């Protein structure tokens, strides 16, 4: 498999560890079901990034599943988290949304779906640690502007739509300041409350 996916290496690293470009995400160790959903979404144009849409356009479900399982199985080291540049207030606001949500604005806690440790849940919910701030805010923006969509009902589109620009900045700053676990462990399927229904994570 390593040779087959060399085409992905310039952007995602040879072991899916990510590269120095903050916008190019790490793939290694994410849940296979989640990665598979993303590959299908890129192939079918539901999630847009033209260079990737182009590479995957004529690949079968079976092959995309193999690619997803391959990257899910890799465990390259995480880079150390970047020291936060944002103020304590911003980081505290981020932490609070992630752990408790914001009842006043109807924002559910991120941990209700992504897990107490933010490690994600099998099969389709990714962890939120080890991602960089630019990527996190880019993805939340993608949901708000419609360039990223997941299977309906697309719960992340609802969640992202409830966040203000400042919330996005705070959440991205907080999450990217946390160290990633060396060996990611996912919450078992169905073990988290999930305040909204998600098409990518069927019950």
């Amino acid at each position, binding site marked *: 498999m390593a040779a*087959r996916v*060399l085409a*992905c290496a*310039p952007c995602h690293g040879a072991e899916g560890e990510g590269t120095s470009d903050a916008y190019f995400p790490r793939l290694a160790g994410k849940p296979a079901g989640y990665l598979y959903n993303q590959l299908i979404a890129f192939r079918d144009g539901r999630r847009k990034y033209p*260079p990737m849409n*182009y590479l995957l356009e*004529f*690949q079968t479900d079976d092959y995309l599943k193999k690619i997803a399982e391959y990257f899910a199985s890799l465990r390259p080291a995480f880079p150390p988290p970047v020291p936060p540049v944002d103020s304590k207030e911003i980081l505290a606001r981020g932490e609070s949304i992630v752990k408790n949500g914001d009842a006043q604005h109807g924002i559910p806690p991120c941990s209700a779906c992504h897990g107490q440790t933010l490690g994600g849940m099998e099969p389709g919910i990714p962890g939120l640690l080890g991602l960089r701030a630019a990527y996190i805010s880019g993805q939340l923006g993608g949901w708000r502007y419609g360039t990223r969509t997941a299977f309906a009902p697309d719960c992340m589109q609802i969640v992202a739509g409830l966040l203000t620009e400042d919330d996005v900045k705070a959440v991205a700053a907080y999450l990217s300041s946390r160290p990633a676990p060396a060996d990611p462990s996912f919450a078992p399927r169905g073990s988290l409350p999930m305040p909204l229904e998600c098409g990518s994570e069927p019950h």
Partner: protein
Amino acid sequence: MSRISTGLLAGLMLVLSPIATSAQQPADPAVIAKGEYLARAGDCIACHTAREGKTFAGGLPMKTPFGTLYTSNITPDPQTGIGTWTSDQFYQMMHSGRFPDGGLVYPAMPFASYTKVTREDSDAIYAYLRTVTPVKQLNKPHDLTFPFNNRSLILGWRTLFFREGEFKPDPTKSAEWNRGNYLVEGLGHCGMCHTPINALGGSKQSQAFEGGLIPMQNWYAPSLTSNKETGLGDWTIEEIVDYLRKGVSAKGAVYGPMAEVVYNSLQYLNDDDVRAMAVYLKGLAQGGPPEKASTSLPSAESSLLLSLGKSIYDRDCASCHGATGQGMPPDYPPLAGNQSIQMVSSVNPVRMVLNGGYPPGTSGNPTPHGMPPFAQKLSDDEVAAVVTYIRTAWGNRGEPVSARQANELRAATLN
């Protein structure tokens, strides 16, 4: 599989008189199966299914230099599809490019090729399309600029480019050659990309299969004629068959718009039919001498380009394509002697370097190896240098490429 193809061959050799069949008559399962196979050969699904849309429900945007056309719903839904059409009306569409009311069809629907399809085969496709799930979905109106939004313009196009008529086998040639001719010129509509397109949007018949730049897509479909310099003259039948069915071969891999054709259509054809196409393609003879290369850089500049190109090649390309361009087929195509990168137009190799690519996943090659895009890593000068190098090293006879050409293709739409 072989039963289907002998049946087809028999049908082909018969001179058929059109028989009007009633729309309601339930069709024979064998005819439906044959129709499904022929619809694959015609690649109806590629145009008549939108991304993530329902199969055959249409709505796919087709960009042309004159605006955007939207393909039609060809499911048997009576209100929004072709559920009320008779087999006569269907044949008229395929054969004459006319709607049931006599209206003219835009040539983006390849009736100029489908006109060669026999009545029997048209009826089989019709029978098959009646069995697909009906989808209620109104056709989207085309979005064409004036004056192209006026269908009467099609009349002029037809006078210039449309020759109506079913395929007539050539009795001096083998049954295999005739079958290949029928598939390539008819249902396969290969000339739609592989014959140069003139400003009016028609394929130039005088230069059939000599290759052409596909408008709006910025890809060049190479010559398929058997000229040693630019065609398939050096390919064995086996190599052409592998290329068409598996998407990879010892001579080169499928990429760009050709990947769609292999993915949706050719991989589903049986070995006899693909072999027949290869036999026919190999026998095509080039009309005139191939176009002479037009661009040439001053020699001092090109020798500098070449040495820069070689160092980039050794660093970024040799690990897959080999130190002397020999490749590791079928996983990594050879670049030495690969005519698809030496053509007068340098669009294809430049785009391959910028965008990378995967050959299509097919049943014969389900998990292909891929090539990374170099658009971010290499500057325009470096792209020009490495493409110049692969076009001229190892006995290749392509012309140098300029940084400006490389730059222009950065903006090409990807999909």
